[in-house]
């Protein structure tokens, strides 16, 4: 397992700065891993939530950057990549062999920054499989920099890469910018600064006290022409007949075949995560290992030093103990779910199916202020809202991220909760199942439509490329899953401990019981539920499935069950999701969302109560 030193900083003085730059899906993270091995340092880039991975090897500091299509300061990722790349001593540009037409744009942009460079044409075996033959020598000749063919998952080509890295070269700069760069060199210091100034980068222009010259488009067009010309000479396509993958890709897009395929995929995912992992696997890891073995052991151990019943004992190993609940949730419950999600996500990502689902559902999502790309967090939400909230990062604007997070934390029940709810409602008959679904779905649509109307700004339109459909590689999927799961746990565990501590304090001080009484009028008067239901909602603050399970123990009529389930579904998200929400958004937005969830749950629950009871 890789070692990630959070928030520690490597001493970087005197190290040669080798910066990895590449498009999304060029296999850059696996490439970085193959290049640097185990010991990496992950930290947030100052002032952003963008993560930067670094590794010190010998006299070199390898720095990974977020995958971007170009260095145009269109978003935080691109700004971070720009700032890191400008300070590079060597740029290692990773391109996807099957996507040269797209990826070489960034290659030329880096090259024109005048920084010594090596180009790694990655996944070269896959390009061959697709019938593409790439002349690497000619590519190297046309770019003027060393070019190496690699297969990062197998470390293929890395010996040649190491040789190339000892002699990186400044490439052949296109005539369309060469003169301007030389002319500006004295004034702006480096070709990198000069190029980005010429491309109208507002930050770069400002720090040199200049106005953007308005020449971006001219340069982009000329660069695009050069890319197309290079690709024309370097890539030979020797297989043009429609292959199975192409046909499959097309069927995924046509609504008539695409929608059934999507439903089957979603059902498959739901089955794996909602039944196999959330119930079978977690049944062992949480129930057997953690609750039956680990927690009693821990209570005994701590009880030997700190007497049971004392405040400290309760905080450490009580119901919400930092050493009991935190460890049980993180390793017994979250870890299996997280590994399951990242595994399925990696398969979906690597197969090329996700962008096609995004295209298929784009129209439906524009009505609620989102575009097709939002399907990814929505799909993941039915497994685990916490994980899904993190993936909202891939959405184009802050407005879309807010809408998606609001829908996720308020209306989408996670697999654990859904398990409890299905168990309670299904036996009541289809009318009750239908009322539940109508209430929750209507809330989903209303929240989306209202936020789309109320929030300022404009959501972005769908503009994505559809990679070829392919069979995911096992090593690649496993590596991605392992890295991401590890990083998630490293991030979530400390936050979780803090949450457990706060709840523990509430319990010890008696505030938990006081809160029960605050709830009572709402539950009895408005929701028409028994008074004890308040306890379940307080449990629901910790986790909604907790709350749902609490309601299962009470004797409710069929109509009351529907009201209770609608309310607990729309209720505030679990602690883990709240903590992630606070991390992804600012505290103000996160607090508003939390309070809204609270209010909407009781509002909709009450309305349903007035109708059905």
């Amino acid at each position, binding site marked *: 397992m890789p070692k990630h030193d959070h928030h520690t900083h490597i001493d970087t003085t005197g190290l040669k700065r080798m910066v990895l730059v590449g498009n999304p899906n060029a296999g850059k993270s696996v490439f970085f891993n193959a290049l640097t091995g185990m010991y990496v340092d992950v930290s947030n880039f100052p002032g952003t939530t963008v993560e930067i991975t670094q590794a010190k090897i010998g006299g070199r500091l390898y720095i990974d950057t977020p995958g971007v*299509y170009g260095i*145009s300061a269109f978003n935080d990722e691109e700004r971070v990549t720009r700032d890191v790349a400008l300070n590079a001593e060597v740029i290692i540009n990773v391109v996807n062999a099957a996507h040269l037409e797209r990826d070489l744009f960034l290659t030329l942009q880096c090259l024109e920054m005048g920084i010594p460079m090596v180009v790694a044409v990655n996944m070269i075996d896959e390009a061959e499989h697709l019938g593409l033959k790439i002349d690497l020598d000619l590519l190297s000749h046309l770019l003027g920099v060393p070019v190496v063919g690699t297969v990062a998952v197998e470390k293929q080509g890395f010996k040649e890469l190491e040789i190339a890295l000892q002699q990186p070269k400044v490439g052949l700069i296109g005539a369309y910018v060469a003169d301007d760069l030389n002319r500006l060199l004295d004034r702006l210091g480096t070709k990198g600064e000069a190029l980005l100034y010429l491309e109208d980068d507002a930050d770069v222009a400002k720090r040199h006290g200049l106005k953007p010259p308005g020449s971006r488009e001219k340069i*982009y067009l000329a*660069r695009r022409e050069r890319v197309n010309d290079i690709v024309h000479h370097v890539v030979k396509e020797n297989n043009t007949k429609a292959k199975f993958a192409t046909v499959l890709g097309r069927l995924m897009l046509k609504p008539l075949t695409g929608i059934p395929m999507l439903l089957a995929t979603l059902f498959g995912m739901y089955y794996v995560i909602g039944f196999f992992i959330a119930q079978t696997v977690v049944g062992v890891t949480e129930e057997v290992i953690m609750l039956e073995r680990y927690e009693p052991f821990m209570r005994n151990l701590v009880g030997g030093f700190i007497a049971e019943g004392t405040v400290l004992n309760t905080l450490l190993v009580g119901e919400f103990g930092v050493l009991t609940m935190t460890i049980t949730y993180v390793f017994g419950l979250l870890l299996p779910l997280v590994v399951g999600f990242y595994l399925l996500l990696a398969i979906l990502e690597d197969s090329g199916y996700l962008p096609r689902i995004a295209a298929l559902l*784009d129209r439906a999502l524009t009505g609620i202020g989102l575009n097709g790309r939002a399907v990814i967090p929505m799909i993941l939400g039915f497994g685990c809202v916490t994980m899904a909230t993190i993936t909202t990062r891939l959405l184009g604007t802050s407005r879309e991220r807010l809408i998606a997070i609001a829908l996720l934390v308020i209306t989408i029940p996670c697999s654990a909760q859904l398990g409890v709810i299905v168990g309670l409602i299904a036996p009541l008959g289809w009318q009750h199942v239908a009322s539940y679904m109508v209430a929750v779905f209507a809330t989903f649509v209303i929240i989306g439509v209202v936020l789309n109307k109320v929030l300022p700004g404009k959501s972005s339109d769908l503009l994505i490329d559809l990679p070829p459909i392919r069979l995911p590689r096992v090593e690649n999927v496993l590596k991605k899953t392992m890295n991401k799961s590890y990083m998630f746990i490293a991030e979530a565990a400390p936050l979780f401990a803090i949450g457990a501590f706060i709840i523990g304090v509430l319990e010890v001080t008696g505030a938990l019981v006081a809160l029960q009484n605050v709830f009572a009028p709402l539950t009895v008067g408005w929701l028409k539920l028994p008074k004890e239901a308040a306890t379940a909602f307080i449990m629901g603050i910790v986790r909604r499935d907790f709350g749902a399970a609490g309601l299962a123990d009470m004797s409710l009529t069929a109509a009351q069950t529907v009201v209770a389930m609608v309310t607990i579904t729309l209720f505030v998200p679990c602690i883990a999701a709240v903590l992630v929400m606070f991390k992804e958004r600012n505290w103000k937005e996160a607090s508003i969302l939390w309070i809204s969830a609270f209010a909407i749950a009781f509002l909709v629950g009450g309305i349903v109560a007035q109708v059905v009871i």
Partner: protein
Amino acid sequence: MFMSELKRGDRATVKHIASELIRAQAIRFGISEGSEVSVEEVLPAGPVILRRGTMQYAIGRNLAQQIQVESRMREKKHA
């Protein structure tokens, strides 16, 4: 005409993209004014799926309504 009016199997040349930001993004992806594209699929009221060389793109309906194209010959049979 606009890209949103194209039909499956059509070939077209991109003439004008209204938004400067989208224009820059599209150039990076591989589509610029003058690019020749073919239409792989048009989803009902949804995105237009384009092919150019080995690349495939999905373009939201709203965006497609802002991209001017000139339709070229229609492919006889969809390969």
